[in-house]
């Protein structure tokens, strides 16, 4: 097994042992409950909307918690003196963090397919979820660099939810119909994430999809650069600094 696979496997084992998978499955169960009790037979639009909520919040939270655990247990230091590159370590963590999102998507999709009606290309949605989850995992790592503990992380994620995700949801569910507000939401990365996910379920202008993909991929590159650059500083910082 090469080192990247060892790291990835280690991340997945720890997601399970630290109950992060369980937390993700619990949230998935809530989404399935919502789908079940909705008085709608065709859930083709609703499922991607729920997936958007799941991925944007859970991916940020799970990677943040995983980083905080490693910081608290100082295992991050022992990783720094192992014969692995920073890229291997970060990519293994980021890719492992996509798995709970994919699991959540699969559970919701299978339930909808078996019990309700859903007309979505699963593999297209899987690609969209992987990209959005990757982006939000990067954001989660970056947020962890600037938070002192778990409570602080939760506060920052809540703030981010209000600033980045809530406006997009309000427009998506037609709660806010103001055109300037709706157009303004395009500056938010969560809007791009929503467009990429919803593009698998309904017809969206091609330019919107292309713009959203470029926005997300570009943002991923910028975030990855920042995450990579600041990593040593974060890893060596003592707890509470």
């Amino acid at each position: 097994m090469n080192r990247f696979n060892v790291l990835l496997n280690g991340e997945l084992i720890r997601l399970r042992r630290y109950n992060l998978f369980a937390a993700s499955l619990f949230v998935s169960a809530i989404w399935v409950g919502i789908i079940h009790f909705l008085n709608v037979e065709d859930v083709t639009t609703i499922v991607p909307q729920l997936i958007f909520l799941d991925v944007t919040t859970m991916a940020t939270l799970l990677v943040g918690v995983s980083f905080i655990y490693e910081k608290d247990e100082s295992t991050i230091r022992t990783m720094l003196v192992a014969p692995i590159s920073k890229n291997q370590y970060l990519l293994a963590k980021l890719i492992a963090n996509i798995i709970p999102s994919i699991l959540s998507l699969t559970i919701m999709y299978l339930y909808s397919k078996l019990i309700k009606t859903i007309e979505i290309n699963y593999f297209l949605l899987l690609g969209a979820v992987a990209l959005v989850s990757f982006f939000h995992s990067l954001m989660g790592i970056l947020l962890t660099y600037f938070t002192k503990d778990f409570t602080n992380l939760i506060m920052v994620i809540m703030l981010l939810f209000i600033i980045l995700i809530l406006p997009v949801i309000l427009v998506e569910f037609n709660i806010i119909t103001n055109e300037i507000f709706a157009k303004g939401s395009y500056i938010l990365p969560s809007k791009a994430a929503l467009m990429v996910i919803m593009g698998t379920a309904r017809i969206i202008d091609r330019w919107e999809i292309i713009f959203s993909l470029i926005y997300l991929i570009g943002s991923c590159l910028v975030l990855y650069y920042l995450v990579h650059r600041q990593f040593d500083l974060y890893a060596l910082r003592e707890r509470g600094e």
Partner: protein
Amino acid sequence: MYQINKLVFRYPRNKEDTIKGISFEIKKGEIFGLLGPSGVGKSTTQKILIKLLKDYKGQILYKGRDLKSYGPSYFEEVGVGFEMPVHFSKLTAEENLNFFMKLYSSTVDVDGLLKRVGLYEDRKKRVSQFSKGMKVRLNFVRAMLNKPKVLFLDEPTNGLDPKNARIIKELIKEFKEEGGTVLLTTHLMNDVDELCDRVAFMADGRIVEISTPKDLKLKYGSRELDMEYREDERLKRATFSLDKLGDNEEFLNIIKNYEIITIHSKENTLDDIFIKVTGVTKDE
């Protein structure tokens, strides 16, 4: 093994250098002690040598090659024993070691090492169930996992009972006998006395003294001898210079005619030297 020349380091937010131009050498196969009070730059020096800190000035050569030119493969040859526990607490000791073992191309006989440090029976327990001493011993096993050529040990016996401290010290000695090189940071001067071939004392970012423990004791001790003897049922004390002791009539008279109770040369302990050369009370 290592040549450190005019090493200078400043942390990004600091106004002053933490390491102020230190130069020293760590020879292959020796146990080198880096000693000094808190905040003098010992840990920073160690972090630079294990490549955790990179923006330093000066030159560090490892096996004749610039340390900066080494990639992650450097850690195939280096084992690091941190002072604080560095394990995934919700994984067992065995799972922790198995995970790290797979990252290296060659590894030690882990079961054998676990047996030596007395953790074999507990290998299937979660690390969160371990006592502090067990975590310290597991740290040592983690450091030795990759059959390193160089070991960096930070307080390797801190928190251990005398029996387990003895086992760890024996393992360090065996590592040295097999050709390994050790950089030891500790405040336990007994460990230094027992293990180190050479020591460097640091103060305010500089090396203020570097030599063998024996030479330092001679250098900072007085060349005198203290003795207690019994004369007419009374305990008496006398001090003599070690120079030409064999010609000292008074000394020879006491030796010949009185019952000697104690006799000691007045060499300093490393504790005394620590305080003397660093200029502060020992607190690390």
